[in-house]
C-alpha cells in the first residue's frame, strides 16, 4: 500500500500542553511549539516536518481535548 501522505491540523487554542500526542507519533514529528503561547498560556502541540506524516491519527486518538484534525493529502 503506497504510503499515505497525511496532514495534521491543530486547533491551537484548545491545547492544554499535556504532551500526550508527542508520545504516540510513529514518525516522531509531533512536538510542543516552545516558540509560542496559546490563549490558555500553554505551548501548543505542532508538527514541523508535515511531509513525514502518514495520517495514522495516533495523535488525534490520544488527545484529550479534541485539538487535532487529520487529513490525507493527494500526491
Amino acid at each position, binding site marked *: 500500500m503506497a504510503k499515505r501522505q497525511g496532514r495534521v491540523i491543530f486547533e491551537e487554542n484548545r491545547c492544554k500542553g499535556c504532551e500526550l500526542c*508527542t508520545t504516540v507519533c510513529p514518525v516522531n514529528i509531533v512536538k510542543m511549539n516552545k516558540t509560542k503561547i496559546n490563549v490558555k498560556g500553554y505551548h501548543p502541540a505542532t508538527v514541523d516536518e508535515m511531509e513525514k506524516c502518514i495520517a495514522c491519527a495516533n495523535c488525534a486518538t*490520544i488527545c484529550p481535548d479534541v485539538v*487535532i484534525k*487529520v487529513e490525507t493529502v493527494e500526491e
Partner: protein
Amino acid sequence: MAEIFNKTEGLTDKQFHYCPGCTHGIIHRLVGEVLVELGVLGKTVGVAPVGCSVLAYDYFNCDMHEAAHGRAPAVATGIKRILPENVVFTYQGDGDLASIGTAEIIHAAHRGEKFTTIFVNNAIYGMTGGQMAPTTLIGQKATTAPYGRQQATAGMPLRMSEMLATIDGAVFVERVSVHNVAAIRKAKKAIKKAFEVQIEGKGFGIVEVLSTCPTNWGISPVDSLKWLEENMIPYYPLGNFRTPEEGK
C-alpha cells in the same frame, strides 16, 4: 483530500474544563463517536454525575440530566422506563458510582435496566481535590489518606466490574483503559458493544474505563499513563467479564 479524523458530532463545541492530560476528554470523545456511528445521537438521553464530569451535560450533544451524587442509575431508570425506545446512558466517576451510588448501580444491574453506564475509574476524587476513593490503591496517597491507603483502616480497593458481573441483569460488563492508543481503540469497541446490547434490548451494560488524574496523582500527564499501566491494571485487570452469548 479525505478526512481521517475529525471532531465528532456527538460532542458540542464547548471546550472541556478538565485538567491538562486528564483522560476524561478521550472517554467523552469515544462515547460521542459511538453514539454518532450507531446513528442514535438524536434519541439519546444522558445522565451526568457529580464529580469532575458533572459538566458533561454541556459536552454531550444530546439531551442530558444532571443527577445528584451517586443517583445517576436511578435517574436513568426513570428515563428509560418512560422512554424505552430512547438510548439512555449514565457517565459516572468512581466516587459517584463506587461510593455513594453503590446501591443504585447494583440495583439497576439487578433489575436489568436497559441503559448503558460508562464508569470512569481514576482511583481518586478529582473534583473535590484528591481525596481517597473506594478504588484508591493500597499505598496510594490521597488528601484523606496522607500515609497512603491502608487495608487495616480503609479496606482493599473495590473491583466494581467483577462485583457487577455476578449479577445476571448485567449482561455486558467489561473493563478497559485509555492509557495508550491501542487501549483507546479497544475501549471504543467495548463502549460500542455496550450500547449495542442496550439497543438490542438485552439488558444493563457497563464499561469500566481506567483513567488518569495527573493533578491529584501529582504526576505529569505523560507519566500518569505509565503509572496507570504499572499500578492500576495489575489490580484492575482489563477484559470482558460478561457478554450475552451470540444469537441470544
